[in-house]
């Protein structure tokens, strides 16, 4: 357990609307190893964005954590903090200083009427402790900005006085990454950090992220639906479907074994410029409707390997040699031979 920096335990999150509730996260247990890059893969309705919000404790109403915990282990000694129980002041410290986030589409994350410098300054001012003089703070901001902008290969003098609209998409995203590093967090969550960016810029951004992970030991959680990106940059992969974790293991094992039929379907539906495309197949059926989930395993209507048990019972998360999967195919004790 000391190996993990974050542990999500039996988390259940629901959105309570006027006439009904939607269960966005259904009893998810997932661990994130310290210093790793973990990808969470899922399509619409999977719940991955809600999960990320839970880690940062920013679930907005009408969403609510019904049960379960998000546990944070600041250092290897294993002293745990329940994020969902933190008081506002502690949360303030946790957010951005321990765990920060790079949102999808840098467009809406940057204030369009403030220069980059002003935004850095504002963030550092809010988190400043003790009595700092204005001049001291300015110096601190400039120094730190230079450090983080260098990591993302941007020129401080050029970037600081600019407004967001003067930057290209790739530059904006790099500024967001620099922003997330401002207070030296231990975890960074990245939500589809490179959609809308071209492949070449995407590659350079991931290389920057990998360097940050390696040199600074920052744990990264990457939310994506792009299996290519996962294969190239992630150490571990968690696959989500309809609010449940259906498979989790290191990247090579997930791609190699593809225990869960959904994982297999997803990878088989991803065209590649190299491989032979004749074995590609889309996944049958439609994405899960959280208002009307199928009974038992939510994937069963689309599953080519579904059998009699699947519509009846929700599968439990099982571990097979460090490989987690939630599927009746592997429920050996109860499956009839």
């Amino acid at each position, binding site marked *: 357990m000391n190996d993990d920096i974050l542990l999500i335990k039996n988390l259940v999150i629901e959105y309570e609307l006027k006439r009904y509730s939607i269960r966005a996260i259904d009893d998810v247990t997932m661990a994130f190893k310290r210093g790793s890059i973990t990808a969470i893969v899922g399509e619409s309705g999977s719940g991955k964005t809600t999960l990320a919000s839970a880690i940062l404790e920013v679930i907005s109403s009408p969403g609510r954590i019904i049960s379960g915990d998000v546990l944070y282990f600041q250092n290897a000694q294993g002293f745990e903090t329940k994020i969902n129980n933190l008081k506002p002041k502690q949360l303030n410290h946790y957010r951005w200083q321990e765990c920060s986030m790079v949102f999808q589409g840098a467009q809406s994350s940057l204030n369009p009427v403030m220069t980059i410098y002003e935004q850095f300054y504002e963030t550092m001012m809010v988190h400043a402790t003790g009595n700092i003089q204005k001049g001291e703070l300015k110096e601190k901001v400039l120094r730190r900005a230079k450090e983080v902008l260098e990591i993302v290969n941007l020129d401080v003098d050029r970037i600081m006085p600019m407004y967001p609209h003067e930057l290209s998409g790739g530059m904006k995203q790099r500024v967001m990454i620099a922003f997330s590093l401002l207070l030296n967090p231990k975890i960074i969550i990245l939500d589809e950090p490179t959609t809308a960016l071209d492949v*070449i810029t995407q590659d350079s951004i991931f290389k920057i992220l990998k360097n940050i992970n390696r040199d600074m030991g920052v744990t990264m959680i990457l939310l994506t639906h*792009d299996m*290519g990106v996962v294969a190239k940059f992630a150490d571990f992969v968690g696959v989500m479907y309809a609010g449940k974790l259906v498979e989790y293991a290191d990247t090579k094992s997930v*791609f190699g074994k593809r225990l869960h039929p959904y994982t297999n379907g997803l990878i088989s539906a*991803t065209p*590649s410029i190299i491989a032979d495309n004749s074995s590609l*197949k889309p*996944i049958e059926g439609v994405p899960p409707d959280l208002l009307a989930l199928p009974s038992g395993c939510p994937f069963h209507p689309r599953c080519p390997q579904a059998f009699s048990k699947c519509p009846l019972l929700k599968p439990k998360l099982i571990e097979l040699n460090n490989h987690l999967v939630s599927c009746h195919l592997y429920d050996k004790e109860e499956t009839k031979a």
Partner: protein
Amino acid sequence: MNEIIELKKLHVVFSKRVGLFRERRFHVLKNVDFFVRPGEIIAVVGESGCGKTTLGRIVTGLLKPTKGEVLFEGKPIYGFLNADFANFRQSVQFIQQDSYAALNPVRTIYQSLRAPIIRHHRKMKNDEVDRRIDELMTFVGLNPPEQFLVKYPHQLSGGQRQRVLMARALSLNPKLIVADEPVSMIDVSLRLSILNLMSELNKKLNIAFIYITHDLATAKYIANDQRIAVMYLGEIVEVGNINDILTNPRHPYTQALLSAVPIPDPIVAARQKDIPIKGMNIASIENRTTGCSFFERCPYAREKCQHEQVPVVKSGNAQIRCHYEKEIPIWVKPQ
């Protein structure tokens, strides 16, 4: 003269006034020569800002070029009289990227499909029109039709809406359909079924397709053994058979692109080499008219590349725009 659509020496320049006297000119498309033959699928690939969407708008007649000719079946469309222009319009259709924005939000699917059919077949009786609509819906996989026809666009999923767009494009019996990023806003697991549908339309009805995308992998899937055109900053830098180009890319930009595309296989991905490109920032499309648009980022660029107009040369089985074609090294595919 077999081509449906041909673009000759096309230039599109947008100007924006800056200050009182100055103007900024954006060369969105430069020196483009392009054609599509009946029944063929050609993929047009490039990153955002390369001009591929503008190319699509030129082909569908939504945008008039600043210079150059747009030929439909050999004749320039901007010289057409009404009847010929109407014929052109009917023969070239468009499927847009954002399926929600492409449908009128306050009209049912039935109403949106009915309008173009009535417009082009004034003499058709009501139940004939209804039958045709049912036919189209079934063809694109929306069965039973009634279930979808009464709905409004926001009540359908992205994939279902894309199919509606295809049904609508089909209803005019076009010879060519321009599809602009048709699957980029759809879940990964469903993309193939939309692409398969397009492939079916192409094979069964002999409709040509221009498939515009930034995703090389889906381009490969759909264009199969046909052509691909790679664009950079308003120019077509490489064009030829897609299988040839993906195994042996000759233009440095194509090589960089192929090195950057992530491959969904961790073992192969680990062996991917660094991208042969200089610098991270894409140059702007402002004001550059002479020389090679890739000059600033090309690892093999030389003096000549900055100023002299770049010729189109044959390289392997493809055609590329380059001064120093023979010196571009062979690209090695990661195994």
